[in-house]
């Protein structure tokens, strides 16, 4: 390295230093604070503040409510991300293939995506209404107890989440479709490729990278899912829709057990970091990330 390069490098570090410091303060400090809280019995209402070591983690390891929430979070993440991916790509292809009504379709997609989760939840509360809800009256034709049935409640919440976030995948995929040069399809046509063949060998491989990024974002969101279930079911019935973040909320803001709630928060944090790390490795292999 020449001295000029070294100087430039030092200047570069100096220039990013403020940003790094701010980031460290804004994310690092709270994360460490929560970690520290999670090692304590901290219940301000009762004036309790004492070191607890790993007691909260030990309790959680044997806590059926925790494992239930972890399972629900996993199932919710898997099902909603998968459905969003498949439906998102289908919608993108439909938009691409049919110029007519594209603008309307786009507006509707954006509307669903732009709506705050709490509003979506309220909307679905009415759609799922046992007697007068659209879902029952039009689609099912009988009075299914969507939000009050331990088997149906989680699928109902997943469906609402898919409706809300599928547009994100669809719009990203659609944007990528627009950049695929038409020569590729023309050449394939000359070679006698079927439409399905073109989808299989041209479109999907080219969508792959953008979809991986979409899945990364969606997974990280889904692992932290909170507002939909909080408003729609409150985690019920019988905790069948309680995710880890809802459980953390109950511990932190209702029971005001800050140490206990923080322990759940730390676990969610570790989970999110693990998912992010795994994806980043995958993306790096694809040459998408440094």
């Amino acid at each position, binding site marked *: 390295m020449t001295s000029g390069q070294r100087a430039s490098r030092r200047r570069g570090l100096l220039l990013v230093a403020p940003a790094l410091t701010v980031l460290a303060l804004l994310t690092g400090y709270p994360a460490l604070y929560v970690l520290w809280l999670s090692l304590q*019995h901290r*219940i*301000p*209402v*009762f*004036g*309790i503040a004492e070191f607890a070591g790993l007691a909260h983690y030990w*309790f959680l390891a044997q806590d059926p*409510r925790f494992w239930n929430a972890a399972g629900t979070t996993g199932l919710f993440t898997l099902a909603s991300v998968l459905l969003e991916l498949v439906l998102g790509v289908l919608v993108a292809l439909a938009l691409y293939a049919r110029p007519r009504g594209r603008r309307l379709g786009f507006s509707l997609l954006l509307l669903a995506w732009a709506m705050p989760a709490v509003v979506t939840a309220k909307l679905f509360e009415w759609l799922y*209404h*046992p*007697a007068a809800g659209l879902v029952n009256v039009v689609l099912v034709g009988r*009075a299914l*107890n*969507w*939000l*009050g*049935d*331990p088997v149906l*409640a989680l699928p109902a919440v997943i469906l609402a989440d898919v409706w809300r976030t599928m547009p994100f995948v669809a719009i990203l995929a659609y944007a990528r479709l627009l950049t695929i040069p038409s020569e590729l399809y023309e050449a394939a046509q000359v070679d006698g490729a079927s439409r399905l063949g073109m989808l299989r060998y041209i479109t999907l491989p080219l969508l792959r990278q953008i979809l991986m990024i979409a899945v990364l974002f969606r997974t990280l969101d889904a692992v932290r899912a909170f507002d939909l279930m909080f408003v729609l*079911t*409150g*985690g*019920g*019935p*019988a*905790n069948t829709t*309680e995710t880890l973040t809802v459980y953390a909320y*109950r511990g932190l*803001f*209702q*029971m*005001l*057990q800050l140490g206990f709630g923080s322990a759940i928060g730390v676990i969610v944090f570790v989970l999110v970091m693990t998912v992010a790390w795994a994806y980043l490795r995958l993306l790096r292999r694809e040459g998408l990330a440094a």
Partner: protein
Amino acid sequence: MRSWSGPREAKALVVLASLLALGGCAGESPDRGITLVFKHARILGPTDPIPTLLREFEASHPGVRVKSESLPWTSDEQHQFYAINLEGGSPGFDVMMLDVIWVPEFARAGWLLDLSPFLAADETAPFFPSAVAAATYDGRVWALPWNMNVGMLYYRADLLARHGLSPPDTWEELVSQVRRIRAAERDPRLEGYLWQGKQYEGMVVNVLEAFWANGTRVLAEDGRLFPEPDQAAEALAFLRRLIETGVSPEWMTAADEELSRRAFGDGQAIFLRNWPYALDLFEAPNSRVRGKVGIAPLPRHARAAASGGSTGGSHLGISRRTAQPALALALVRFLTSARAQRAMVSGAALYPSRQAVYHDSDLARSHPMLPRIHAMMLAGRPRPVTPYYLVLSTTVQPEFSAVLVGLKSPQRAIRDGRRRLEHFLVSLR
């Protein structure tokens, strides 16, 4: 009553003088008024009486401005808001509306000003004793009751009359009345008894009422949990059976107050358990059940002596960090006065915490049910008055919900709930 004037006035003068000096420097006169911040939930109802009341208070306290600030919509979010802001140390509000179940908790946390030293000996006497009890912790009063609620039974007076029935005294009677009326009416859309079984605080209230109707409770005076587990299990089993036998529809397990209130208001049910606010909505001009609704106390079980609806409602407390305790107390006194409470009945369907207002001759003309509601409120019971009520409720909610949807036996839910509670409470006692 202790007077606040002496040292406070001196302090105010010093502050005022320094402000004037500062104002002189800046070349403009400072705002000499005092601002009180009043945090409260948004008031639903035909007309919000709060702004008028606050202007009236300002008129009688020259130089004082009351800023009214809304809390978030749901009770959960309101509790979160208070917990964060009060624990943070600089709350930024003086007077706050409190759900009755939070008062002991907030008092224990040291967030509320102890009102006892300022209250005259008989000052709490005109309020419902159960409301005063709910705001009393450690022998001191931490908030004044603002409005009152009680769980009660709504029934379709027209349907009962058509079948020659009078409102049920016992749950057994209610079930047989539902069967009889539904068999005769032959309307598949007519449900029997609606209540609240979603996994939330409202469901806990319903279960507690079922416990009381069966002669038991969740917390004994000595702090034991589920002191009579067999009777508690029976009460839970009864609620589950209501759903299993179709007396109540399956969707009770997702129903809150509004969902059940709307179905009854659409004429789709014979009985409903709800709070008094629903009455005004049922009697509204465009209501489908207008003039067809009666109210009665919640039934009891045949062998239990008495029942009682759960009381609820809100209190007004003062932040311990307020800079204006005397004025804040004056505002609390004004808002809990008979005059203010009369305005709230007519404007917002909020029921008074003062007993005399229920027998006010002017109000009785527009609100003929007031004396009956008064009797039910007097017979109502508070939820356990303890600083760890929310820990209790949050822990038992999923257990009770599991019974209602048929995933757990009542015995097991009680056992699991008790074990979890003991874990969380052991460090608190």
